[in-house]
């Protein structure tokens, strides 16, 4: 009965590869987010979608492309991975209330 689920939980890949992280929420929320947490635990918003429409796009490299096929899903595709992309990526959702976070995807780029 996981409310916000992300896959995979761990992702280890080499520089230059392309990878995707998937997120699904079963809460019926209209808004979904991607946050990045760096090695110092600093959390920063990357993107936000409301009902499949992009509403927040922070200063994120073009190599990152979110895709929302429907309001329950928000996937993150990353092209040409770099060492600095290593972090924990959190998906979240909300409906005008508090954010509900997934358990994160730990991405390690070698």
């Amino acid at each position, binding site marked *: 009965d996981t409310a916000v689920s992300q896959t995979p939980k761990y992702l280890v890949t080499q520089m230059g590869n392309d990878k995707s992280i998937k997120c699904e929420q079963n809460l019926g929320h209209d*808004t979904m987010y991607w946050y990045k947490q760096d090695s110092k635990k*600093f*959390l920063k918003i990357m993107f*936000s979608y409301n009902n499949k429409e992009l509403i927040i796009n922070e200063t994120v490299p073009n190599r990152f492309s979110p895709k929302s096929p429907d309001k329950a899903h928000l996937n993150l595709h990353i092209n040409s991975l770099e060492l600095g992309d290593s972090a924990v990526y959190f998906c979240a959702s909300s409906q*005008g209330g508090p*954010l509900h*976070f997934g*358990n994160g995807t730990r991405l390690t780029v070698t």
Partner: protein
Amino acid sequence: AQSVTQLDSQVPVFEEAPVELRCNYSSSVSVYLFWYVQYPNQGLQLLLKYLSGSTLVKGINGFEAEFNKSQTSFHLRKPSVHISDTAEYFCAVGGNFGNEKLTFGTGTRLTIIP
């Protein structure tokens, strides 16, 4: 523009002692404030929130926080901590509707000493 400052990166506390985790914010719009907790290898979980009304907010697990507009603070407190409270705690400030573009502090690692 919004920002959050958590003054203490680490706070060690003996079990059953009281604790206060400090948070100061700045915002040019209406303020909505949150505390989230992150247990090891997990996502963030909402502890409590201030949207309006009473400045003393009670949350889950015995935590409470007080919104102080004049001091631009939203400190988190618990009168008696337990080993299970060991976690990372994040203060966050929201914008127009509370959740759009939440800005997080850098976190405070709370360690409970048996």
